[in-house]
């Protein structure tokens, strides 16, 4: 089922949590709301779920007005960061809860409930835990039970609030892939909130990058990573080197469209988009090698130019060919540069947007 968000705004006292948010989520899509903490992503998710009411704007489910529909009537599955399982119920009863509280007329029979719950537990591969209690499960198991519980009522929309935030890296990776598969099998619309860019880029069909109550960019994972719409998106998605025109003249001027000579510009270059050369080439920047760290499949090189640190990532092969030594003089050449005009303090420090 499609979700449409129209001009949603929300304030908490003087704090603007959401500022005129517009978003369309077509049926069957898995969307990630990505942003730093306090950017309003969880508030938006809770407004979609009906657990928070917006100050202004509308939420539409499949084209129907749902802004004032109570959470229990929205038919939305919600998965919480800290699972929110019912502690005094067994795993089976947790999953069965949504079915047992249905009005008598539409409630499935006891046998049907048993069947449905067992199917769901099989789906999340935890049918052997049916009689345990939540306190006896590991974090990853609890989150899968929470997901099975949310799916039991056959929701039209699945909402997940930092679903893997409390889990360790290995379990998180596994569950991510598993969520993707599950979403594809269930044919529902899913929205999940995360502050982990890797998670968003790996799992989602579309990524909505949010910052300070506004949407910065909406796009496919590839789009938002390789073609960021704003300096914020650039900095939030992966590492980036920032070059100011007053320090790194030629570099920041590369790709600058017009603009007076006194206008300042900032160039953004990803660490893996910088080439290191042993001799000067046209448009290159002189730098000194400070440190060389091999990290897994990559080699991270820190270089200094005019007392500013530049980070470069090389493949192991390239690093072997270059044979960099600390203190060595090299020349840097960017493969891809993105220039944004006048670096506003607001973008970098998150101060007032004036």
């Amino acid at each position, binding site marked *: 089922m499609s979700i449409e968000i129209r001009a949603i705004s929300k304030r908490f006292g003087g704090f603007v949590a959401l500022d005129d948010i517009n978003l369309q989520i077509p049926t069957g899509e898995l969307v990630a709301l990505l942003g730093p903490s306090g950017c309003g992503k969880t508030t938006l998710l809770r407004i979609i*779920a*009906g*657990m928070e009411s917006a100050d202004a704007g509308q939420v539409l489910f499949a084209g129907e007005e749902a802004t004032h529909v*109570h*959470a*229990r*009537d*929205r*038919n*939305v*599955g*919600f998965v*919480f960061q*800290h699972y*929110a*399982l*019912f*502690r*005094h*119920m*067994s795993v089976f009863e947790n999953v069965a*809860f*949504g079915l*047992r*509280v*249905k009005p008598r007329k539409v409630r499935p029979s006891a046998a049907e409930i048993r069947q449905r719950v067992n199917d769901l537990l099989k789906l999340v*591969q935890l049918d052997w835990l049916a009689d*345990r*209690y939540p*306190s*006896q*499960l*590991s*974090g*990853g*198991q609890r989150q899968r039970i*929470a997901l099975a*519980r*949310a799916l*039991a*009522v056959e929701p039209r929309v699945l909402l997940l609030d930092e679903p893997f935030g409390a889990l360790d890296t290995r*379990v998180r990776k*596994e569950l991510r892939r598993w969520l993707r598969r599950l979403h594809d099998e269930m044919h529902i619309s899913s929205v999940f909130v995360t502050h982990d860019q890797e998670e968003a880029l790996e799992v989602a069909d579309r990524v909505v990058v949010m910052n300070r109550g506004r949407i910065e960019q909406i796009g496919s994972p590839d789009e938002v990573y390789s073609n960021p719409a704003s300096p914020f998106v650039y900095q939030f998605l992966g590492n980036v080197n920032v070059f100011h025109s007053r320090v790194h003249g030629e570099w920041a001027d590369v790709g600058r469209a017009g603009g007076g000579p006194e206008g300042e510009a900032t160039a953004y270059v990803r660490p893996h988009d910088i080439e290191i050369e042993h001799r000067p080439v046209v448009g290159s920047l002189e730098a000194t090698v400070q440190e060389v760290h091999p990290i897994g499949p990559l080699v991270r090189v820190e270089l200094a130019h005019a007392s500013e640190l530049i980070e470069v990532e090389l493949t192991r092969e390239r690093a072997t060919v270059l044979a960099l030594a600390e203190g060595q003089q090299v020349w840097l050449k960017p493969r891809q540069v993105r220039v944004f005009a006048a670096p506003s303090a607001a973008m970098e420090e998150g101060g007032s947007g004036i």
Partner: protein
Amino acid sequence: MSASTSRSRVLPGFGLSLGCTLVYLSLLILLPLSGLAFKASHLSLAEFWAIASGERALASYRVTFGASLLAATANAFFGLIVAWILVRYSFPGKRAIDALVDLPFALPTAVAGITLATLYAGNGWIGRHLESLGVKVAFTPLGIVVALTFIGLPFVVRTLQPVIEDIEPEVEEAAASLGASRLQTFSRVLLPAIFPALVTGFTLALSRSIGEYGSVIFIAGNLPLISEITPLLIISKLEQYDVVGATALAMVMLMISFVMLLVVNGLQWWAASRHRGDGPSDGEVR
């Protein structure tokens, strides 16, 4: 405690602290109570039975335990509401109300009794209106229930507060998103989580009520067979230098209280252990 068991524990001082506990409990509780039992054993079984099952004694048991049960039940219900509101909502004057709950703990019980008796008497602020409705509170068994409710409330509220604080609001939201109504959320999700603590609070309020003397005698009227509580009967026996008779009644109270507490604790243990696992699983995630 042998050296080997104490060495196998991570936390030190088990032997010492257990020893302290036993000595302390023996001196404060076991010794006086055994003294009581010893004194009562001067009576032959027939004499004991004659005193314990006297008409006045039986009536006083009924009043004491009946009024205590009623008061504790009322407190369990309203105490739950008070605790819920104090934990879940914020409103002006919340801290004042929170402090107010503790007053029955601190107030001398005689003061409470006199105040309640004045309020509920036929010419008192509340009693005046109740009397015109045909309800007499002061100097009747109903007055005893009122006094016991007053002194028992903090026990329920203070026991429930930490437990309610422990329930994440998310659990309620989860129940709502699964389609549960407010009533279903309360009866299926919240109440089972609160229940063991509610039983504890009920038990504490009940025990306190059974032993209460000071506040009750001012409001009860103390008519033999109607509104006379067992503690008062014990005192009047003592005043007549009938120490043995007093101890016999005390023994009866002790035994009934003990059995009641045992049953309630058993209930509470059952409720709490229903959803307690054997500890975390092996942590495997597959």
